[in-house]
């Protein structure tokens, strides 16, 4: 994976150093990856349990809209006050995200709906609420503090990127260093055995979707920090993109296997390729193609390498089929 990042980077450096290596371009890569990256981390978590969360982007937008509305409402009365209340606004926004995650959790963990259906449903619900709420208009307005934060850099590195890295570290800690993380992984690897090991699946699933909701909320904050507007249908194209990133990162869609570092690297890879393509004047269509080629190539490469090491396990699906039949 790391190799891939380096390779992609090298390629475009050679193709068009002037533009690609320009400080602005590098900064832009760092500026664009956070919001996608955080969503991808959430998607990875959901996939780790063998599920998926299609409602992430809708949740993020709902958060952004909440914050923007709240801010505008308060600022209408007393701008200064709105700035002071920035932390509160932030918390409320994130809380909305967690709430969205909770509803997903209820449907998946308690009612027992297949995640892909549950979250497809909630995706439309949240998005619908956003549309009805904003009347379709793009809201303008965010705490100046947040906007400044979104524009600021630390030693040339955009602060948003630092946030992304921090979130990644936190999730890494959660997955690899906490009982919950272990349970989530095992739940994904074999729900039946997890149950017989005393892992309370509904609790684990609920915690998972609460976390994805939280991350969705954080992504929403990033949206708003990057530019002070909120709309119902921002980031629609992210839904599948983050799925691509997650699997490119080596996450097994059937659950049980995923790495946070992988997600970070995969995010960067795609960002780099994207910017690189524009730098050498290739079209969005060609980029779509490249994305696919990378995905397939990486998977095939891994598989071949991995086969040489160990006898191929039955194709994914077989395992979960037998263990969950």
């Amino acid at each position, binding site marked *: 994976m790391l190799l891939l990042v380096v390779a992609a980077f090298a390629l475009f450096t050679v193709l068009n150093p002037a533009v690609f290596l320009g400080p602005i371009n590098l900064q832009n890569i760092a500026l664009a990856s956070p919001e996608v990256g955080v969503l991808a981390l959430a998607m990875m978590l959901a996939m780790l349990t063998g599920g998926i969360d299609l409602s992430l982007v809708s949740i993020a937008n709902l958060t952004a809209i909440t914050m923007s509305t709240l801010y505008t409402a308060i600022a209408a009365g007393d701008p200064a006050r709105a700035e002071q209340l920035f932390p509160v606004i932030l918390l409320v926004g994130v809380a909305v995200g967690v709430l969205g995650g909770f509803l997903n959790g209820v449907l998946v963990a308690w009612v027992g709906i297949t995640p892909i259906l549950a979250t497809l449903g909630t995706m439309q619900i949240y998005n619908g609420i956003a549309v009805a709420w904003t009347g379709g208009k793009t809201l303008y307005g965010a705490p100046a503090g947040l906007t400044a934060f979104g524009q600021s850099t630390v030693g040339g590195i955009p602060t948003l990127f630092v946030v992304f890295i921090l979130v990644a570290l936190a999730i890494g*800690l959660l997955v*690899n*260093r*906490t*009982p919950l*993380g*272990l*349970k989530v*992984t*095992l739940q994904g*690897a*074999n729900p*039946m*055995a*997890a*149950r*017989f*090991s*005393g*892992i*309370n699946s509904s609790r684990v699933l609920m915690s998972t979707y609460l976390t994805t909701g939280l991350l969705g909320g954080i992504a929403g904050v990033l949206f708003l920090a990057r530019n002070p507007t909120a709309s119902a249908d921002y980031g629609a194209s992210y839904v599948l993109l983050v799925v691509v990133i997650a699997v490119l990162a080596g996450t097994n869609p059937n659950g*049980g*296997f995923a790495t946070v570092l992988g997600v970070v690297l995969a995010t960067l890879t795609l960002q780099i390729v994207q910017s690189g393509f524009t730098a050498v004047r290739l079209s969005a269509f060609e980029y779509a193609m490249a994305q696919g080629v990378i995905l397939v190539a990486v998977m095939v490469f891994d598989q071949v390498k991995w086969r040489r*090491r*160990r*006898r191929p*396990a039955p194709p994914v699906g077989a*395992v979960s*089929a*037998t*263990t969950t*039949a």
Partner: protein
Amino acid sequence: MTTTARSGTPAPVLEVRDIVKTFGGVTALGGVSLDLRPGEVLCLAGENGCGKSTLIKIISGAEKPDAGAIVVDGESFASMDPTDAIKSGIQVIYQDFSLFPNLTVAENIVFTSAVGARRRFFNPRAARPAAQRIIDDLGLALDLDAEVGTLSVADRQLTAICRSLVNEARVIVMDEPTTALTHTEVAHLFAIVERLRARGVAFIFVSHKLDEVLAISDRVTVLRSGKHVVTAPAADLDPRAIAQHMTGQEVDDSRRVTELAPGAAPVLEVEGMTLPGAFHDVSFTLRRGEILGLTGLLGSGRTEIAESLFGVHPYESGTVKVDGVPTTVRRIDDAIAAGIGYVPEDRLTQGLFLEKSIADNIIASSAEGHRTRWRTLDKRAIRSTIDTLFRRLRVKAPNVQAPVRSLSGGNAQRVVLAKWLARRPKVLMLNGPTVGVDVGSKSEILDILRAQAAEGMGVIVISDDVPELVACCHRVLVVRHGRIVEELAGEDVDVDSIRKKVAA
């Protein structure tokens, strides 16, 4: 070597020549040869991980050998693919059954032969008679329309057996076909084997139940860590001798139970526990340091009793006390919180995370117990727990990072055991703890149980393997039609009386 063809005996229907197979580092088979004659039953014996299943998978074309040849009726294959094998009349019961959980019993039974016959069309209804016939032959009560995924291990095993018998095979390979079966089913099976061999069908039979082995086989081939040790007529062998060949040392399967402290406190008290449709008015007491046997026929309800105590199917009435504290077990976490552990019957799907490492499996149910002050996982403590158990249970694997899928049956079972020992439960219930475990490991596992009991754990062993119960249990309860009908203790705990009570 005693396999040099005796004059007058028919030509072998199957020969295996110098098969070599390695998995990454592990050498599963280091040049094994054997031959099989029409109408004979050859038994493969050997410790867990000695390569029996691997050899069988190679014969059936499920695995490709690195070197060597397979000869069927003089036709030599460098390697088979499953179709070749099936075409040349080789039927296999795999250790993991290799059934289709989403298809019905009937479909599972007839499917392979339909594939083998390269049929184009499939008619579920037409499939039933054939399946029904073989089921009647075996005197079974399988529901042809049930989905295999919903069956108990025993029923799945029976389905696998039926599948191997349904069409005219010339060689039938059975990899531990009786692990989940009780005396009666085994008897039926052997009857059929006898009938078929009379018709010239040859059998390769793998089992860790050595008395079965001797009862059914003409010749016994013993493997040790992928090498051929000896092949001898069954008549010239006894369990001790086979165990000797397998392990290279004496194996002690005699009855050894530590004297219970007279005042040993009860750790588990069950009073009038009832789950309609499964069991009724079950009452018993388990004392600290005691090993209690629970046995009975298939479907007698013993598994349900255990699973109910573990919260899988909560009992509807009755009282349960752990360490004298009244406890209600509604969900599995209740049971675990109360200090009850359960090694399930269905190791592969309920017990293990096959794709995960041994380490992850061992720690699976004790994560909470290994937390630092900051509620994160205490990696050091975890590592030490894992290493201790890995060594103490002598799991045979390159390292703790190896995926459990690559372990042999016996070693897999040790991992499940390790998972629970890591949690130090007050009561440990084991359903078929030594199913598919070789005699050597078996006595080791029993020793582990004895040791745990000696440290004050209460142990319940649910098993059909009477000698095993005799070897380690202070008392044995016999379950029939969901009720505890007998309690044997002290002197009465012996193979014959238990068998009598169970069958009665």
